């Protein structure tokens, strides 16, 4: 389909899938920067954020893989993002160095 292609919506599950992939690719770049200079705060924040994003979305997938119905996938996505934000705040503000 070309010129007359109408807009189609991007559903929640697609966002979850896409964000996890984007986080994985982003991690490759950020890890390289982090190895170059481990003390840059912005890179540290990006690394922590991307690791958490990739991780919580991975856990969401595993929870569905082991049997939680896909009917809950939207709520799981929201919970995963909230857990990621909470963990980021926890690690960032109470870091030990």
């Amino acid at each position, binding site marked *: 389909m070309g*010129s*007359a292609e*109408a807009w189609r*919506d991007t559903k929640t*599950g697609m966002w979850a899938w896409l964000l996890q992939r984007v986080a994985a690719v982003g991690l490759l770049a950020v890890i390289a920067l982090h190895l170059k200079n481990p003390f840059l705060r912005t890179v540290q924040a990006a690394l922590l954020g991307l690791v958490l994003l990739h991780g919580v979305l991975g856990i969401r*997938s595993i929870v569905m*893989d*082991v049997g939680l119905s*896909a009917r809950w*996938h939207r709520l799981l996505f929201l919970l995963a993002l909230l857990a990621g934000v909470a963990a980021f705040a926890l690690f960032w503000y109470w870091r030990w160095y």
Partner: protein
Amino acid sequence: MVLRVFRWGPGMRERLQKYWVRARQGMTVLDALVEVQRGPDPTLAFRYACRVGMCGSCGMVINGRERWACRTLLSTLPRGPVTVRPLYNFPLIRDLVVDMAPIKSKMLATKAVFVPGRRATEDGGFAQIGSNSRERRAVDAAVECIGCGMCVSACTMVGHDRRFPGPAALNRVFTLQRDSRDGAHAERSAAMLSEDVLARCHGQANCTDVCPMEISPTDSILALRRRAVLRLFGVSPR
């Protein structure tokens, strides 16, 4: 209200054509399309049969989402033009009509057809599976598939990998793999492990989101995957 309808036919350039329809209370998208066809444009092609949300013939992409036109009230859609286009991932015949043949061909390719096993004709008659049995309850929702194709249209993986059987065929496979009367479990299980089958589903659950029968093909696929993993470890799934 303004209806923007996808138009295409052999030899024609595809386009979105605008129609003005007077919206009435209780009017559905199908009503609006019928009004256009009976009035200003008798050449507009679309498919429908029961008009009451049973057959699934009127599956279309309305405002970017797969829905059945006969059950989509105009009043439930956001204000503004309503865009209607044919289902994705099916060959287009004309306007809003697509060729549903891939549903059948993908089912045949995945052996999603009942093969009578030893238990099928137990006691001389057809073996009975109680309506409240564990076996029946496991497939209660999944057997309600009406083959409307909306899940196939919404699946991004079908669009990406033409060999992927898609949610409708895999949902059917799931019901057969749970059927103790079926005799082709082992053969189907082996086919499921191909790289273009179970592994291709990325769990986006688009199929589950759009299914008008509220079936969750994603759950069926994930259940098949769990059974495949158990088999790999030598455990026979129930």
